[in-house]
């Protein structure tokens, strides 16, 4: 009985969703001769993942290497964005003058399409890989600044009054009040940012080339290999989901 209830509440809905998704896909594939169906895609996915870490030539490496290379770029770009964005968010949230100074610039730059930053990166860094990392950096920094700053601003005035009465140093205020209170906001920012970063890397690699899941998709598109493109969609989606889940895990550990 217990299993049945668990099944009905937790397992059945996602399974039904997946089944409906596959059904729609199969119907679409039936009516188009160019779009491969789920079974055909599964076959080539099995072939592809049976040897994910081969290295034949620099221009032909296994899907595993491509994913790892992309993750590496995201890690560096995202890490730099966190390193700079979060402290910046605290400063912007804490000091009103700086907030007013920077807010028009941030509001203007935030909606810019990430890929518009690529040529700038190429011009400044004179190399494709740093340019791709730069695109990750610039597109994932905004949610971190904005959410962290918002967290700081949301801080109840009472907390600060208490701090003033107790005559706490700025450092104590930061470690004992500001940081714990803004943490949930900060983590939301980080989660939004990792989603964007992963989204952007695929597009950036399509333009810059090199080893990575983005250029892999581009190369398969050149070959008009639709099965591999669909597999790549799943790979990108699943890796994105895993990254997000990982961060939610971390967020839960830190929530007080």
């Amino acid at each position, binding site marked *: 009985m217990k299993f049945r209830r668990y099944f009905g509440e937790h397992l059945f809905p996602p399974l039904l969703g997946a089944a409906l998704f596959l059904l729609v896909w199969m119907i679409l594939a039936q009516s188009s001769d160019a779009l491969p169906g789920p079974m055909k895609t599964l076959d080539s996915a099995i072939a592809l993942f049976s040897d994910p870490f081969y290295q034949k030539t620099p*221009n032909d490496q296994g899907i595993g290497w491509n994913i790892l290379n992309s993750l590496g770029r995201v890690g560096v770009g995202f890490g730099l964005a966190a390193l700079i964005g979060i402290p910046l968010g605290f400063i912007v949230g804490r000091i009103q003058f700086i907030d007013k100074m920077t807010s028009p610039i941030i509001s203007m730059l935030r909606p810019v399409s990430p890929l518009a930053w690529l040529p700038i990166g190429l011009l400044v860094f004179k190399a494709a890989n740093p340019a791709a990392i730069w695109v990750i950096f610039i597109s994932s920094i905004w949610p971190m600044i904005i959410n962290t700053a918002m967290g700081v601003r949301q801080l109840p005035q009472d907390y600060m009054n208490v701090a003033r009465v107790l005559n706490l140093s700025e450092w104590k205020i930061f470690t004992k009040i500001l940081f714990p209170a803004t943490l949930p906001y900060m983590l939301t920012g980080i989660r939004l940012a990792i989603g964007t970063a992963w989204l952007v890397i695929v597009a950036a690699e*399509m*333009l810059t080339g090199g080893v990575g899941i983005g250029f892999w998709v581009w190369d398969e598109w050149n070959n008009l290999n639709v099965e591999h493109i669909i597999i790549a969609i799943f790979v990108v989606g699943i890796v994105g989901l895993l990254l997000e889940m990982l961060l939610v895990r971390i967020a839960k550990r830190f929530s007080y």
Partner: protein
Amino acid sequence: MKQTGAILGAAGIMSMVPMGTRAAAWAAGSDAPELKEVKVGFIPLTDCASLVIASVMKFDEKYGIKIVLSKEASWAGVRDKLTNGELHAAHVLYGLVYGVHLGIGGQKKDMSVLMTLNNNGQAITLSNQLKDKGVTTGGALKKLVDAEKRDYTFAQTFPTGTHAMWLYYWLASHDINPLLDVKTITVPPPQMVANMRIGNMDGFCVGEPWNNRAIYDKIGFTAATTQDIWKDHPEKVLGCTAEFSQKYPNTSRALIMAVLEASKYIDEMSNRRKVAEIIADKSYVNCPVEVIDQRLEGKYEDGLGKKWNDPNYMKFCSDGAVNFPYLSDGMWFLTQHKRWGLLKEDPDYLAVAKKINQIDLYKQAASQVKVPVPKDVMRTSKLMDGTVWDGKDPKKYAASFKVRAS
């Protein structure tokens, strides 16, 4: 072989020294490549073959270098990586190198053409929708464009590149102004095919295997091959920055020699099937062998039922006639850039071509691998509309076209 020492300099003298001594001098180091690893970019197209063969068959090692091939995403990507030094050299569109040198279609940077990689082997594909309307030739296209007003979309691969120039020339020869009468856009080949499939693209000009692919995928047909527009036209070149060829002359020569040997190998028709198999690999063109093989061997079909053996198939060497960086070839692209308004003023055609095309380096390299060098730095070609281009009066030639940018 008639060579004048004055032009050839050291290499001319070298070629008179017996082979054994020369090899010893080579090993002694004065001519040793300054740079052992050469990073060379390519776009997955049939005409990247000589670079791939030079690397796969190890012709590069014979001349003391290692070619590291890097597959690139787009011509704009090749341009950026060449100018910022990430690539030492690349398989690149002739017109692109000239455009970058003059600061059109990219940041201005002094460029070099080390050699021409191939002649012929591109084509203009029109969509099956046009065929259904009875359009199979340029003349019929002109009638349709006049009769039925709508947006006609044509695509090429890079604004200053060869495909843009072939497409414009072909349209203009049929009295269609590519800038006024139709819409021309720059998109990558897979996007051309995807758009043609859904009826958004009327035609495109691109290198093989894409035109054959359009027939294979039943979305279009070959209306004209580029060898119909200009028999033995220059196409891709081995390009690099002027900085590279000045700083590493020995490496540049070694690179030319390795690619020349590969070019000779590919031009043996008996080797072509094997070449198709090598370059079809996932590391290179990443496409079924059959799609590359046919046209590489000169076996054409146009998708309308006509089959023929084209004597002017894609050539890679032709005893060096393909590879010599003729000044007139380079200048031709400048005349077309001027014709279509990409260049506002007439440049000093001859001076620009002399600066870009590294004739001395090429001659030295060619004499080492026994590839004949033509006597004249200009050649005379007759194009599809009957006009003759001999490089003598580029300014007048550029101004002579009736259909042009207004």
